[in-house]
């Protein structure tokens, strides 16, 4: 997940509604946002932060054999299980390659179709959109599994089998001592707890 997002231009959303956008009193229920990528990308992940969008459809424009084709890679993906209620309205989401209907390779444009059928909300959109490319050929992730077992991988935890009791007990003692210090430092400074006023931060 440490891959960098590709640079892209996100166009401002266009509302789709029947009637005149300016004079019509009802709010649009569909927005379309286009994202153009600087160069064709094989997409690994699209991540974003939701803002009251209920359903998301993603279409991709792929460069294939010199021509550009539009395909749908995600249809009506549910972001808010109940469009009238808050659940999911501010959540962070990631859409991965394996969730998509078609291979997101050589993508030049990404089109996000946002739908919010509920009349509860004034606005809806998607924010903090980041598109992550596939890992390069020589990165760690493409290394076959048997090679990674040869080199010792730093694991914070040994979930298989019982760890060595000596190291466990010494690390526990250290942790206890540390928590005691931390607790003490949260409650006192050099043994004193002369609190005068609370601070507003």
């Amino acid at each position, binding site marked *: *997940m440490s891959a960098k997002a590709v640079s892209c231009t996100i166009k401002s959303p266009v509302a789709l509604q029947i009637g005149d956008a300016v004079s019509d009193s009802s709010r649009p229920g569909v927005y379309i946002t286009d994202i153009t990528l600087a160069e064709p990308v094989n997409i690994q992940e699209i991540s974003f932060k939701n803002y009251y969008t209920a359903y998301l459809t993603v279409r991709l424009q792929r460069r294939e054999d010199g021509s550009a084709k539009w395909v749908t890679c995600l249809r009506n993906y549910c972001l808010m299980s109940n469009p009238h209620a808050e659940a999911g309205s501010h*959540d962070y989401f990631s859409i991965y390659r394996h969730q998509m209907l078609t291979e997101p390779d050589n993508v030049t444009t990404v089109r996000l179709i946002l739908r919010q059928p509920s009349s509860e*909300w004034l606005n809806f959109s998607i924010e903090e959109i980041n598109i992550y490319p596939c890992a390069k050929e020589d990165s760690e992730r493409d290394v076959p599994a048997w090679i990674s077992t040869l080199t010792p991988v730093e694991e914070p935890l040994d979930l298989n089998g019982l760890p060595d*009791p000596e190291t466990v007990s010494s690390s526990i003692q250290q942790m206890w001592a540390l928590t005691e210090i931390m607790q003490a430092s*949260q409650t006192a400074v050099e043994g004193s707890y002369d*609190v005068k*006023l609370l601070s*507003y931060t």
Partner: protein
Amino acid sequence: MMDESVSITQIVQRLKGTNLHSQLEKQAKECLHKPEIKLETLKDDVRRLLKASGWERKLQNAVYRELHILPPPGHPRAPPEHTKEPLAYMRKTQVNWEKRILKSLNSMCTELGIPLARKRPVAEQKELTNKWNEMGTDEPDLSKFRPVYAPKDFIEVLVGLKNPNNERSEDLTVRSHWGLIQVSLNVRDILQMVSLPFFISLPSIFLMSRHKELVSEQDSAAAQQYSRQGCPTGLRAQLWSLILNTTNDPEDITHYEQLKARVIHHDLLVDNLIYKDVKLTASNDDYYFVFEDYLYQVLLCFSRDTAVLEHFNYNCATPPKSCIQSKSGSEQCAVVYPPNGVIPFHGFSMYVAPLCFLYNEPSKLYSVFREMYIRYFFRLHSISSHPSGIVSLCLQFERLLQTHLPQLFYHLREIGAQPLRIAFKWIVRAFSGYLSTDQLLLLWDRILGYDSLEIVAVLATAVFVFRAENLMEVTSLASAEAVLADLSTLKVMPLLQIFLFATSV
């Protein structure tokens, strides 16, 4: 799958630092001396012996407890405050509310000229140690102190909670929400609650005879399931302790003694707030005044317990802080005040009072109260979108009433008696001090059994339904309150059953 392994890692990391881990390790080492252990099957033999001696069950209970308080899994890019509470406008309201509380506490402190914390002189420490078991006999002058806030202040904050992205017109239509809570959260309706075997499992003879086994098996999860149908009075204390996985080992007693020592050494301003609260609420209550001393012993220690700070991992509230200058004057350090980060409000002691009927050892009473607070009670006074949070409970109450008794709701609204204004005090205290104690404990059995506070909202609605006829005839808020003033004769389970199963929409 990713979420699962992350959760497992988190739980194992947390358990690694606990007393249970070192005890398990010690037990495993002692197993090695047993003749049944063979080198070839060492791992399996040790596991088998630990299972037979009940240690595996203890570990299971500990894991089960961790699952209860595990913070919800968040998206890798979500900041921590988002994981605790995704809705930005709720976080903002909580922050503003906390600022108001801090200001109130600071101004009380400045007006009275009393420091928020001070070290007690030795003579005072001695006196307090002698008086520890009878602090209730003290009659300090508390007239200058006032509670930092009361439920009636808090309800105004919740009523003012508005989503900026939501347009609410003032028109009263069939579709609009008639109540005070103006946010759209997902709350469960009756149909959703009874389609699961929710709230009302009828006790079966078979299950009732199992309760002795439950206690001997020491299984947290089984005890929790059992509690859904109510605990027998004689076993309730043990079962609750099992569900909450609280122990009364020497380590727990030592921890409690350490807290007591902290109370003796330092005097906190919040202590006076606690005294005042106990005197105003529990001491005036027919059922609870006998436990006054216990309440001080629990609440004063609770304020000093930094272990409570861990619940801020999943509570969107922030503990108040203060800057202390170090003795050398060179550094400033931020410390939490009070040490447990919780400022008591008017009625707080009522969370502890009912537990006094179950536990008479202060350290045991303390452990159970602390666990109940960090699992459930904290949600009743912090602003969040959690289904058991106070906002959801209030909304659920209003929606249930509007859906099932629209005529009553409309009538009460018209006479200026919004139902939530009457029910709020019941909900915020989980009915403590309003129901008779045996009925209250039956209610709290279900809170533990279903691991949710929703039943409090449902009971509030059921009470209104029960007294609907009388309420339809009142013509003012005062008379509506009079109809609902005395709940001490109510029986919780029949009330809930009538409402959930016999009320037609």
